[in-house]
Every structure is written in C-alpha cells, then in structure tokens.
C-alpha cells in the first residue's frame, strides 16, 4: 500500500496553471524523484501537499486519510517534513540551536527515543549529534557557529537536519543538492540511503539528475504543471517528451 497518494492536484496563480491535475503515489521507504525544467511547478506541488498553499482541487491521502486543506503545522505534526528551496534557517541562532525548535515540537517530543529521551538539556546534545551525522564537523565547531555566518552548503544540510529532527515519515527535499560541490553531494548520498533504510520515505525535487538517479527508485517528470512521465529513471529520460522539455525545441 502507498503511504502517500496524490490525486488530481490543481493549482492556478491568477491565469497561470501552475499544476494541472497531477497524480502520483509513493510507497513507504521509497525514494521518489521529481524532475522538470524551471517553473514547471515542482515547488508548488510540494507546497500544495504540505499545506503551505491551498490547491483548488484534488486529494492528498496520507496513510489513508485525506489531508488536503489541513493547516501546514498539522500536516507536519502528522509526519510530513519539508525543506525550503529558498533556505529558511533561523539566522539569529547558532546552527545547533536551529534544531531545538523541531526537537521541541509536539511530534518530536511525543516520539522521543533519541539517546537520552529528548528531555530538556539533552536536546542540545541530540542537535549536535544530528548535525554531525549530516556532515557538520564537530571538532571544527561549525555546529556552534551562527546560522547567518554559514555558507550555502551547510545551510542546505541544515534544512535537511531540521526535517530529520522532527522524526518524520516522509521528507520532501526541495533541491537540497543545489549549491553543493560534487564531493559534498557524494558525502550526503550515504545519509540519504541511511534515511531510506530507517523506513523514511523521501521525495526529492532535483536538478542534479546524475546524483538523483543514483538513489531514486522512481522518477516523475513535470512540465508546465503537467506530469509527462513516470517510472525508472532510464525510462523517464528516454521519453521523448522529457527530452524535449529539457532540451527545448532543438530536438524536434
């Protein structure tokens, strides 16, 4: 059975059809990639599913219940975390303190189970542990630096770390690889695999196709708000419509 199933989501901005009846479903523990050229509606799709914007039509089933129309915090509390493409760290806090907020949230407290149970006082330790796991070198004191002083590579990882701290069932990653060097991405791939092993479902919007295809089980391609292909990445990139979308009219 699928953990998340999206049916006929549509969203318009003014006259622009940002999403046209998009449907897909994802199994638990799967890594599902979403690709598509700029402006094809990938971020809008994430926003619609996670409750940050309200779609005009369609249904979103999470573990069998329709969550469309729920407020964003309720969807997150149910177990759907997301990163922001335009990064949204707490700039006035040190990196590790950024994780205190998700660790304090009702969901993380209810689940607990971090070494030490996630009580107050332990949260700082847990936060630094999570950051270390995601590639913040503990010894170099990067976890203690102010978020406003961190370079993009770390901020991208901090986005993902905030999701992990929430102990979610599904994580939507909106271009977490962009802005990272090839070696930084290579360092993150094992972490992605590890999350998958823990049973977390990952839905990854990416422009870094080569790296995405290393981990993704299935891929969907969007163009102008429409789903144009879905399946194993080899099938998807072989699809003439996908080729055309990526290469423009040169192919024709």
């Amino acid at each position, binding site marked *: 059975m699928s953990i998340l199933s999206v049916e006929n989501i549509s969203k318009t901005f003014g006259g622009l059809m940002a999403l046209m009846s998009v449907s897909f479903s994802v199994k638990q523990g799967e890594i599902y990639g979403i690709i598509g050229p700029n402006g094809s509606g990938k971020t809008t799709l994430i926003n619609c599913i996670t409750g940050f914007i309200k779609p005009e039509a369609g249904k979103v089933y999470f573990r069998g219940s329709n969550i469309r129309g729920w407020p964003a915090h309720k969807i997150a509390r149910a177990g759907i975390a997301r990163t922001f493409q335009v990064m949204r760290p*707490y700039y006035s806090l040190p990196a590790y303190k950024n994780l205190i*907020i998700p660790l304090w949230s009702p969901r993380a407290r209810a689940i607990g189970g971090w070494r030490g149970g996630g009580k107050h006082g332990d949260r700082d330790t847990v936060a630094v542990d999570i950051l270390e796991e995601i590639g913040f070198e503990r010894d170099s004191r990067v976890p203690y630096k102010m978020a406003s002083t961190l370079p993009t590579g770390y901020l991208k990882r901090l986005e993902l770390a905030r999701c992990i701290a929430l102990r979610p069932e599904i994580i939507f990653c909106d271009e977490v690889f962009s802005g990272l060097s090839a070696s930084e991405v290579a360092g993150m791939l094992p972490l992605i695999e590890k999350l998958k092993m823990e049973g977390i479902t990952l839905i990854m919007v990416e422009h870094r196709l080569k790296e995405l295809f290393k981990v993704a089980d299935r891929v969907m391609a969007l163009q102008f708000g429409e789903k144009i292909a879905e399946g194993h990445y080899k099938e998807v990139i072989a699809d003439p419509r996908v080729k055309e979308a990526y290469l423009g009219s040169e192919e024709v």
Partner: protein
Amino acid sequence: MEARRKERIDRGIKVRSEGIYVVSSLKEMLYVAGPRVFLMAGLLLLPLVLEMAPYWKRVVNIMCVYGLLAISFDFLANIVGLVCLGGAMFIGVGGYMTAIFNVYLHCPVYLAIPLAGLSGASICTILLLPCLSLRGVYFAIVTLMYPLLFTRIIEALNILGGTNGITGLDSFPNQYLENYVIIILLLVFLFGLRRLMDEDIGLVLRGVKDNDQSVRASGINVTHLKALAVFIASFIGCLGGAYLAHLYMWAGLSLFALDFSIIPIAAVTIGGGGSMLGAVIGTFILVPLSEFLRFFGTFRIVIYCLILTGFIVFKSEGLLPYFARKYDQFERWAKI
C-alpha cells in the same frame, strides 16, 4: 599613514566565568552576578533612600509601571516579532477590571489585582486573536485603536462610571507596601522573562520572529504561540494597570492615555531591545528625566524630544548593549 582598526577582545574574566567552569573564585562570582545584584539591591533600597522625598517615591512607582510596559513591549516586539502598541489597552483594561473586582464585587486589593491581571489578559488576548496573523504595522495599528474604541464606548454608553470613571478603589495599606508591590512585580517579571528566554520555549518564540514558516514546518502552531506570548505580555501590562488604579484609587478614561503606548517604545529604543533589561534601564532614565524637566514648563517636551533624537542618532544600538560591551570586552587599536 598606517591603517588602523579598533579591535574588541573579551576580558579574561568573561571567558573564565563562561560556560561550565563558572564561579571558581569570589571575583568571578561578583563579575557574573554583580550587575544583577546591583540592580536588585538598588531598586529595593530606593524607597528607603527616598524616605524624605515622598514625591519621588511616587515617581519610582510610576517608573516601575512603565518598566512593566517596556518589558512587555520588548518581549513581544523583539522576541516574538509582534510590534504591539497596546500599552494603553493593557493599562486601561487592567485598571477597569480591578475597579470592577474591588468596588463592584468587593474583593480586597490583594485579590483584585491578580484577578484583574488574569481576566484583563484574557480579554486582551481574545480581542487580539483575530489580528495575530496580521504582519508588521497592521498589528500595531489594531493595538493602538482598541484604547480609543474603549474610551468611546465608555463615554457613549455611560457605563463603568462614564467620563467620571470608577472612584473609591481601596488604596494600599501603607506606603512601603505601595512601593514594594510594584518594585517586586517588576523584578519578578524582568528576571522571569529572561529565564524564559533561556528555556527551549524561549528559543521557539524567537524562531517565530526569525522565520515563522520554518516553525510551522516543524509541526508547531504559530498562532497558539503568538497567543501565548500576547497573554504573557498583556498579563504583565494589566497588572501594571491594576496597580496604577489602586495607586490613584480611581479608574478613569485617562488610563487609556497614549503615553502608556509610546513611552515604553522610547524606553526600549534608549535602553536597547531584546534583553528586557535594556527596556528597564531605558524607563529608569526616561521617566525621572521627564519629571526633572517639569522645571522647564511646556518647554520640556522640546528638550525631551531632543534627548530622544540624540539617543536614536548617536547610540542607536541602545545603552545596554553599549555598556555590556564595555563590561565584557576591552578595545585596542590594531594595525592592519
């Protein structure tokens, strides 16, 4: 000419007294606790020092009421990110509530004031609830409008004593109680709020100001958090209003005066925002200053404004951050 630049370096004692190694000597203990103890002892001794000057004792009382308003404003604006000009609303609602409990329902003072704080804070929070999702200046405008609205309603319907207000509130049993009730309230809320900021919930409130979308994405209801913050802030303000009504033995329309909304902001500007302590220091400068300036008659407003402008232009960071830097760090010129 060589280029030079001012370097700021933490004093050794600051570094030594930080973190887990705290207080290994009396000197370090004094360094850490000194400013706090100084403030507390100073405030608590003030009524005794001013024994011969009853007028100035009164000024201290009013100063502490403004102090409560200033920390309430600082907390909402600089921690949670809600710019609230509701000082007058809190004072007025708190004052009228205590009058209702004390005069109409015959509660004694020591019961009426806390009841006024709780009920007043509930009223203010419920009234502001629909506006919590408004951003920036819109929330500020609403908080500024409510006192005007209350004034007009009381006038028009001639309820709650109409333009005469409610008279006959009990005063405090004696002078010392009158002084110490408000001084202790101020100290409790000042250090209480600072303590709250060090807790994880304080961090979450800060997160709301920094980035409410991320707080939402962490499964936390931002509106609930803001409502909680407004309740805390209006509770502090309403207690101040209730105290003031008993001090005057009267609750009238002047409790909704604009001063209660404006002076706290000026105080936070002068003292420096975000620490609550700066807010208190700002009030302790501003309120006595405006009393001194009474010698100048109507000209005092001009001097007052000049001083305020001076502070904003030349020390825009606020006094507290400035003094904290001098206390914790030394400066030297370094070649570059």
